[in-house]
């Protein structure tokens, strides 16, 4: 006899099961529809674009991040736990469908197919139990800071555990009654069930009637519990609903360049930024439902890490609460409260350095930074609320075109003695260097800019600058929420560059680089923008740049957020450093995608840190821990922040901060 089993062995009226199943399925449809209605109270936003492009773009993350857990495994324990539960449950769910098919349509569950199938399902159940136990242990025993505890967590974990365990008991009872006495060697393929079956064999043999009754009872209990749990999930929008919302959110995730914030259409708007929940777009609202409270964003956030009020997870959950209280429960303290400065405190909003560490970590592609900037826009543009130093930076930008209030330099000072071409006098250049305000007007960053110019000259590059005609790229204004000033800056620079027929732009500041590269196209400024480390690495490869002098230094490279995470340039700077003879390159724990912000982004070069530890000091200490003698830097903001961190901790004799160009110049 071929191995198989009788599906619905002793269960009468088993078709009722499929009727019961309609309840959670109906609730699923209802829940998605309800939520869909909720999201569509938000503003329209086109995320459709080319559907095929979106589908294609979805398949990658769906497989790599969804099924293979690349992002989720970024956290080892949580990743393994999640993989056990998800990969364990899938066969269980599939089994139900396959059983039905085999029972009603075509019976193929016989022979080796049945046995292998049985084994996979059984092991899946064991994996789920292991995963759930890991989850229980972590949430209730280890209690990591990033996890909060809601009763939903208990219901979810308890229900899953109970469902799987009752499943094994049912299986064990059936095996003890029908399999062990007849085909004991089949039972090896159901190791979980076998344990139960062995334990119950005596009872089943002596009380056949009672065992069958128990089996029937448990069978219905298991079915009711499963459907009940599923119904609960969709009725209560439990976090398990992320099975639906997360793939949906991933499907509609942003496909625009990572560093491009959404522009405000000045011609059309009536309010600016987001003050109330309905001013978010539907996708920003969908984001809120997609959150599983996993806390990875919180763990990655430098502001939270340094003890500041901002917690990206809490921001998302608070916004979700505001959404639910306003439109679903219609009660709660967020009702009638403005979001920025009410539901989300102003200090939290100003804490964000827009470093994108949270978004890089989020397994379900939630867009934290975009929301924070929208809320800042409302604070700054509608409520006129901005920290005094940030206000001064923007006021200076309005009047003088740069945020460097109080500088003793003009933009044209640094190249006075270098013979650098200025486009207004000689536009015959191969590439234009966009210097940036900090690189031109901060005396420390100036040195790096001068080194870059010398390196370029040494490599025979025909470059020029806009000189006095350059103005701030607008990044600080945009990240501080002053979209209008940003747009004014962008339009002005685009007009100037187009006037000189500029095609290729070399940017030494990752902030300018990101803004020119991915944000200026929003306003018709399409230039080929290259970061100087990319450009110099090309020169290196083509042999035009030959670092030859030894530089006996151990250098730890710090990834700037706007070069690394935002624009995926991790290699060029390392390649340049590695090419310097004698230079030893080491890494910090948090490098590459996980790089820890220097504390200067998101307009923070112009804001004071009013609470917690200083982020730049933390980062400086991380660099010091590598025993490196020098921090290699590729961003004028980072340079300023590290210099400050070094002087605060009086580490000048142990650690130096050097721009990559400076080290290269020394080696030429």
């Amino acid at each position, binding site marked *: 006899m071929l191995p198989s089993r009788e599906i619905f062995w002793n269960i009468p009226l088993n078709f009722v099961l499929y009727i019961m199943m309609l309840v959670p399925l109906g609730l699923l449809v209802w829940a998605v529809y309800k939520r869909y209605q909720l999201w569509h109270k938000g503003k329209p936003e086109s995320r459709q674009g080319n559907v095929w492009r979106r589908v294609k773009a979805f398949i990658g993350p769906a497989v790599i991040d969804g099924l293979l857990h690349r992002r989720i495994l970024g956290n080892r324990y949580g990743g393994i736990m999640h993989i056990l539960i998800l990969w364990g449950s899938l066969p269980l769910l599939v089994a139900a469908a396959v059983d039905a098919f085999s029972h009603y349509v075509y019976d193929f569950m016989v022979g080796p197919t049945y046995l292998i199938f049985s084994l996979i399902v059984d092991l899946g159940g064991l994996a789920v139990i292991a995963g759930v136990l890991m989850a229980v242990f972590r949430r209730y025993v280890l209690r990591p800071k990033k996890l909060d505890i809601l009763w939903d967590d208990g219901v979810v974990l308890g229900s899953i555990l109970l469902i799987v365990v009752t499943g094994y008991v049912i299986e064990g009872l059936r095996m003890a009654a029908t399999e062990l006495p007849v085909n004991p060697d089949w039972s090896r393929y159901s190791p979980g069930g076998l344990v139960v079956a062995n334990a119950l064999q005596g009872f089943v043999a002596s009380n056949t009637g009672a065992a069958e009754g128990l089996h029937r009872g448990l069978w219905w209990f298991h079915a009711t519990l499963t459907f009940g749990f599923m119904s609960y999930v969709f009725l209560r929008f439990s976090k398990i609903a992320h099975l639906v919302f997360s793939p949906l959110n991933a499907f509609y995730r942003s496909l625009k360049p990572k560093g491009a914030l959404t522009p405000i259409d000045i011609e059309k708007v009536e309010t600016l930024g987001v003050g109330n929940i309905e001013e978010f777009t539907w996708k920003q609202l969908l984001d809120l439902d997609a959150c599983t409270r996993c806390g990875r964003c919180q763990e990655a956030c430098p502001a939270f890490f340094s003890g500041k009020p901002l917690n990206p997870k809490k921001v998302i959950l608070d916004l979700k609460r505001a959404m639910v209280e306003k439109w679903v429960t219609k009660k709660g303290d967020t009702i009638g409260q403005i979001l920025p400065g009410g539901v989300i405190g102003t200090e939290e909003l100003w804490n964000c350095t827009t470093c994108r560490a949270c978004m890089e970590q989020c397994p379900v592609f939630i867009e934290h930074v975009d929301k924070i900037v929208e809320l800042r826009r409302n604070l700054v543009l509608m409520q006129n609320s901005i920290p005094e130093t940030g206000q001064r930076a923007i006021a200076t930008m309005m009047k003088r075109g740069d945020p460097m209030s109080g500088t003793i330099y003009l933009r044209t000072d640094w190249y006075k003695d270098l013979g650098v071409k200025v486009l207004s006098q000689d536009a015959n250049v191969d590439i234009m260097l966009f210097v940036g305000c900090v690189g031109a007007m901060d005396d420390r960053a100036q040195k790096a800019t001068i080194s870059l110019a010398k390196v370029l000259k040494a490599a025979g590059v025909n470059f020029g600058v806009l000189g006095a005609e350059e103005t701030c790229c607008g990044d600080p204004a945009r990240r501080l929420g002053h979209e209008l000033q940003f747009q004014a800056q962008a339009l002005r620079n685009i007009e100037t560059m187009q006037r000189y027929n500029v095609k290729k732009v070399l940017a030494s500041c990752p902030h300018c680089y990101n803004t020119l590269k991915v944000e200026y196209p929003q306003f018709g400024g399409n230039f080929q923008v290259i970061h100087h480390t990319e450009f110099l690495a090309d020169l290196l490869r083509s042999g035009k740049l030959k670092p030859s002098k030894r530089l006996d230094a151990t250098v730890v490279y710090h990834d700037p957020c706007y070069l690394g995470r935002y624009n995926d340039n991790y290699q060029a700077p390392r390649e340049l450093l590695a090419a310097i003879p004698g230079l030893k390159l080491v890494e910090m724990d948090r490098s590459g995608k996980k790089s820890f912000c220097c504390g200067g982004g998101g307009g923070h070069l112009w804001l004071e840190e*009013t609470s917690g530890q200083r982020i730049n000091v933390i980062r400086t200490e991380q660099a010091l821990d590598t025993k490196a003698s020098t921090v290699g830097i590729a961003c004028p903001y980072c340079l300023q922040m590290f210099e400050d961190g070094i*002087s605060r901790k009086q580490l000048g004799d142990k650690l130096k901060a050097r721009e990559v160009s400076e080290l290269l110049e020394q080696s030429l």
Partner: protein
Amino acid sequence: MAEDKGLLTIGEVANGKLAPIAAELLGIGRKLADARGDKLDMLLLGANLAEAAKQAIAYGADRVYVAENPALAEYNPDSYAAAATKVAKQLSPSILLMGQTDMGRDLAPRLAAKLGGAVSMDCTELAIEPDTKLLLATRPVFGGNANGVMRVKARPQMATIRAKSMAALEPNASRQGEVIKVDAGVDASAVKVKVTKKVKQEALGIKLEDAEFVVTGGRGMGGAEAFKSLEELARVLGGAVGATRAACDDGWVASTIQVGQTGKIVSPKLYIAVGVSGAMQHIAGCSGSKNIVAINKDPEANIFKVAHFGVVGDYKEALPAFIQKCKELLAT
């Protein structure tokens, strides 16, 4: 245009005594009057002016016009403008000088309007043009970045002088001069603005941005306690205390007094940086100062590159002596 009739100064009185600015006005006034061959007159407004009038003569006035009226005991813009206008119209001076004080900066333009003259404000030098005998007034413009020399065409030619920019003469009690009482009646209908309250603030209460003297401490001060001596120096000079970002962040002082790119921008007459290394973000906040003094242990500190006066040394040795000497100098 009125006929040239001499040089009138409007003095100020504090607690019955001639205020220092009035002595300074007489010092420069004497030189100008001598250069023109004029008499030097001073008008005093207020109550109980006898002693101040005597002092004015000792400091160089030939004639002191005394407008006494209890209603003028405190400065009121309207009553002072009315009284001063009345006297000035009678005297019809060719040159009229005042101090750039609370009173002068308010009253001088009013008088210029009422008398048909024109005034150069906040002058640091005054001279008589040899050929024309007209007043040449030198005054800082563009926030002190440049100096402009003005020649006033209208009569009276008016100027206010910046305090402590011109020297007073040594008082000579035996000098002879006339004290002339003038009608100081003020038509009540001319007084439309009422002073209801006067609040004196401690020198330390001066806002950092407005202070003429700023004493700033940096990380070199080592702790909150050390800022006490800076406060004392600020008190002696009548200025305010500032701090670098490092000192604020370390919690030694309130962040409201931070000077620098992310703090307050100051441009006092004198900026004293103690234990300040001179990070650019800090220099950005004080580079507009007219004079910068640096006291720092490190002779290589960046602050000496922007300072005008410097001492290399520990603030603990430097400050007490410096404070003591400033006290002595300011008492004279």
